[in-house]
């Protein structure tokens, strides 16, 4: 008589899935922590240019964003398809609003952070420089001199 495996059923044992929720929860927590929800809904489309000398920007609290691009489809009827500037949730009609936006952003900052304020320009590749220079002139007037042309790295 052999000792091993006689008359035993050879079924596949059921996989124990009781730890599956824990596993998923772990991943969930990871994503909950790293997630940063965009505060503004984008009303313009943009594809930033590519460059090689790209630096990473640190300290999100110091950065104010200016978006420039063509309006997304739902706004095309009212705004046309030419390049538009977006600040927070609004389109810009008058360039003076850029200055006001900078002042607002600067007021919201802590006193020690104010000199380190940065403006990130997220500008579409196809934009004409006219609109960009206009923004730059406004930024100069508002003394927001630290500028960052947002871009992707190219290898």
């Amino acid at each position, binding site marked *: 008589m052999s000792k091993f495996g006689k008359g035993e059923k050879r079924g596949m044992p059921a996989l124990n899935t009781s730890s599956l929720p824990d596993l998923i929860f772990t991943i969930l927590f990871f994503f909950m922590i790293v997630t940063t929800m965009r505060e503004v809904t984008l009303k313009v489309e943009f594809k930033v240019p590519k460059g*090689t000398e790209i630096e990473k920007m640190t300290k999100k609290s110091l950065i104010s964003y200016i978006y420039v691009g063509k309006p997304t489809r739902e706004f095309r009827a009212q705004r046309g398809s030419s390049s538009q500037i977006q600040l927070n949730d609004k389109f810009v009609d008058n360039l003076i609003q850029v200055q006001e936006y900078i002042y607002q952003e600067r007021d919201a900052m802590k006193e020690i952070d104010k000199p380190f304020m940065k403006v990130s320009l997220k500008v579409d590749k*196809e934009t004409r*420089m006219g609109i960009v220079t206009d923004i730059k002139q406004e930024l100069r007037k508002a003394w927001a001199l630290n500028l960052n042309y947002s871009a992707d790295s190219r290898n």
Partner: protein
Amino acid sequence: MGKKKREVPELNSSSTADISFILLIFFLTTTSMDTDKGLARRLPPPPEDKDLDAETEIKERNVLQVRINAMDELMIGGDYAEVSEIRARAKEFIDNPENLANLPDKVAKEIDFFGTVYITDKHVISLQSDRGTSYDKYFAVQNELVAAYNELRDELAKRKFHKPYTQCSEDEQLAIRTYYPQKISEAEPKNYAK
């Protein structure tokens, strides 16, 4: 009397996994791990009258004119060029290795680690664009100019400290930055094409 054992029924937790899956997918889709990257530049302060006077004092040999017109055509100094040529031209201009008379003049300056060296302290790269220039082209040119500086600094760091610029200490980096100060002037916009 009917004596029953009252056990707490076990909670069916088989759907916990599904619930957490739904939450996970929600966070997966809303997450934007965009680390902000870009080309950092510094704008000149708002124009004042005395700045205008200072500008006229710059000698012609100290200025490298880079112009982009509305057709995205590029001009360095006096002749047409391609984006790929900028880096070499800019490097030669900034460094002026042979001390040529048509490139920026060198001034003696004392820098830590280096002692007294002759550097092109007064050079300016003037970048001028048209209102019709595309942002893509403008950015490519800016990128090349910054690349020229970065390459020069990196070469200097390797020669002097035998390691790349990014691995140098704060003081060493400062010395290198003083050796090759970044001077890109973004001139007032012009509107050529009407």
